[in-house]
């Protein structure tokens, strides 16, 4: 047995009635990669927050190199050699790599900072672990993969012995993920120990030596990867066999929506450059790509939130004005990327959120809300779309993420119709529809999209998750730097080709 560097013993943590962690014990050996596998809400984040001293456990201890950490003290965790790379980077875009790495490591009272020494040290660390980044580059100018390297360098500079990576591949292209895995192998060879948090089975099997599976706050099992298969892991993770999305045969219909040479410049979101795309009824068109490359601008266009600066966007041959109401009235079902900030008005009750897209028509007359009709519709949406965890008058923010998404689905796909199940949208714009959902809800959302498509709706699926795009789409296009590749049948794409296109290699061909 290798030397044990981290020992978690009997850790429990409750938030109100929810047991986030219950009697979790595990160890991490020197030079080992331990994967923490679990669905969203399984307790992974709580556990690492306790490791890192952000939370105080109700019971149990964390022991690093044989000494028990004082609870609730992130500084002590850092001193003991625990470092963390968050999913959302904590870097200052305006500063250089060197500044970011040094930030917070020097005492405030020292009049001069020791940059020369720090730079030499940084270059040495980079050389030793094969993490090459220009110390003088501005972080804002780096790619996502490079920023992640800076985060890792930041931890190594602080002489971290145990590195915690929170969903590190969520923002990377397949090729960047490969580079990360190579880096991790280098770190482990150099004597570091790594806790790798993920809910993706493939990568867990590839990078780790042992896998700890969490479910509903409990540790289900810890296994060597040699003894694990994808199916076993999935079953441990979910607690049952996975629901399978049944694909219905659907016929490609007429063109429902067309973008022709659309460009968007300026504004807060990323630009679009000369994008052309046709969406057909009865067909799922997937847009793959690393987020931030213009996908949200594309979604904004098709949700009626903004108008193109050049080119035309037409729905059934008609150019609609940039007004959400016009698009809702034209039977466009819109599922926004950010459930909490854009999809729902959290302080308002479920019933008002269920009709918020149709509060004027049909649920009002002469300026008065038809309360009983509106509430009856909301009740139908809740039933038909299986929204649980609250009644009509519960504030929407009190629902879990999965139920919030079902409420949005019901509002959008139901179209305010008397029979929400029978309504067929012309177009469904689904932007990251399953982001952060548990596996059960993911299956539900996918099934609803597929069913609507089979009934004739055109579906635009925008997702960071390549597996999701490939599983659901009839045709796939890739977005990079505001440009969109032509949409090709999903079967014609290889993973490698997709990865290259996501990294922008397609543009070289075009140039």
């Amino acid at each position, binding site marked *: 047995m290798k030397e044990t560097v981290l020992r978690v013993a009997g850790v429990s943590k409750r*938030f*109100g009635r929810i047991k986030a962690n219950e009697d979790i014990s595990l160890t991490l050996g020197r030079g080992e990669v331990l994967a923490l596998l679990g669905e969203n809400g399984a307790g992974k984040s709580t556990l690492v927050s306790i490791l890192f001293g952000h939370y*105080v456990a109700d019971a149990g201890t964390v022991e690093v190199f044989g000494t028990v950490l004082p609870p609730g003290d992130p500084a002590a965790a850092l001193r003991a050699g625990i470092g963390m790379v968050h999913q959302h980077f904590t870097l200052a875009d305006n500063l250089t790599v060197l500044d970011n790495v040094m930030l917070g490591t020097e005492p405030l009272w020292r009049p001069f900072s020791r940059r020369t020494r720090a730079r030499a040290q940084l270059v040495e660390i980079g050389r030793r672990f094969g993490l090459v980044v220009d110390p003088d580059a501005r972080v804002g100018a780096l790619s996502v993969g490079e920023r992640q390297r800076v985060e890792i360098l930041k931890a190594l500079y602080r002489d971290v012995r145990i590195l915690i990576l929170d969903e590190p591949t969520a923002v990377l292209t397949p090729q960047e993920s490969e580079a990360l895995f190579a880096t991790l192998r280098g770190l482990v060879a150099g004597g570091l120990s790594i806790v790798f948090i993920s809910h993706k089975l493939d990568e867990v099997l590839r990078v780790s030596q042992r896998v700890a599976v969490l479910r509903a706050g409990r540790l289900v099992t810890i296994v060597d990867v040699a003894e694990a298969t994808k199916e076993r892991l999935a079953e441990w993770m979910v607690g049952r066999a996975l629901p399978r999305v049944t694909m219905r045969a659907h016929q490609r219909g007429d063109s429902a929506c067309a973008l022709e040479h659309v460009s968007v410049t300026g504004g807060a979101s990323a630009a679009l450059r000369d994008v052309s795309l046709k969406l057909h009824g009865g067909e799922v068109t997937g847009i793959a790509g690393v987020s931030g490359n213009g996908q949200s601008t594309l979604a904004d266009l098709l949700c009626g939130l903004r108008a193109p600066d050049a080119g035309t966007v037409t729905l059934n041959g008609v150019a609609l004005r940039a007004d959400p109401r016009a698009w809702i009235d034209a039977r466009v079902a819109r599922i926004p990327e950010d459930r909490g900030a854009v999809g729902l*008005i959290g*302080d*308002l009750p479920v019933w008002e959120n269920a009709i918020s*897209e149709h509060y004027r028509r049909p649920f*009002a007359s002469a300026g008065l809300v038809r309360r009983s009709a509106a509430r009856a519709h909301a009740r139908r949406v809740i039933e038909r779309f299986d929204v649980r965890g609250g009644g009509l008058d*519960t504030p929407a923010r*009190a629902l879990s993420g999965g139920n919030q998404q079902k409420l949005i689905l019901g509002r959008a796909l139901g179209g305010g119709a008397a029979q929400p199940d029978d309504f067929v949208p012309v177009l469904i714009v689904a932007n990251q529809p399953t982001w952060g959902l548990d596996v059960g809800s993911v299956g539900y959302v996918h099934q609803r999209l597929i069913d609507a498509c089979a009934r004739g709706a055109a579906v635009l699926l925008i997702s960071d998750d390549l597996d999701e795009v490939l599983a659901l789409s009839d045709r796939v296009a890739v977005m990079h730097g505001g440009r969109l590749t032509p949409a090709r049948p999903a079967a014609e794409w290889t993973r490698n080709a997709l990865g290259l296109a996501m990294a922008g290699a397609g543009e070289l061909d075009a140039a």
Partner: protein
Amino acid sequence: MRLEARGRVAPGALIGAPFVAIAFTLLVTAALVAWAGAPVGRTYALIFAGGFGSRFAWSETLTRATPLILTGLAAAVAFRARLWNIGAEGQLYAGALAAVAVGGLREGTAAAWPAAVLFPAMLVAAMAAGALLLVVPTLMRTHLRVDEVVTTLLLNFVVLLFVSMMLDGPMKDPAALGWPQSVALRDDLALGKLIDRTRVHTGLVYATGAAFLLAFVMRSTTFGFEVRAAGANPRAAAFAGVPVDRTLFLVAALSGGLAGLAGAIEVAGRTGYVTLDMSPGYGYTGIAIAMLAGLHPVGVVAAALFVAGVLVGADSMSRDLAVPTYIADVIVAVALLSMLVATLFARYRLRLR
């Protein structure tokens, strides 16, 4: 130490918050009263008696509450839409000035109109003046991103100086022996008395009527939904098709109009003319009242009665005891702060470590 959002906010906690806040306020101000060397219990008893203890006390409290209900509503409706109208004081003065301009200036020409026409025209002019003072800063916010807290607050001083100019200039009352005072409103435009031999006037009916009307609008109309949606989450409201900028524009007209109406009703019901001290900060006090009421229009009536009672009671108490009448301002201010903290704790719980 950190704040954690409560998963579910108990409705009882939100209703109980103002009472807890007021109890805490009385506790804090008790220390100040004791510091002034006065007996705490007797001071509070005198304030209560002066505000609510007799027919006369009630009549004075109701008179004082009338403009406070309207400015409280002005703040409540604006704050519900997250439009931070700090300018109700200036809007009230603008309304008062507009009322006198329509109903008092050049009595010869104005007299040609019968009161039945001139009275509504006077109210409309007052509301339009108040509305204008808030609509412009609101447009500056929606189109130029100028912070309305700054513009509305500073406009108060601009309006006061403008009023001062008018009172010493075109609207000066020649019969006022040099006092800065406007010409008087025509006699037949004055509001009737609600209770005989008191100062309570029918403006109280207008104010409470406005409160119930506003409560209905906020709860049951599409406009009310738009206001609540645009205030709670403007991005999500816009996504769902609520015209957020237009909603803010209408809210501004409504809020400024209510504050302007307060000015007209003060002139028509109580003073009869405009002076520079006709409002002892009714516009600012309206903010505290709206917060105490949890921004609910009917709650505003109750909160305005409480605050008016404290103001009137403190005046009467200070005649008997060596506690300055300013204790009332302290009570109102502390009540506002306590209310903010109380609602915070209704929504969040404090965790040590």
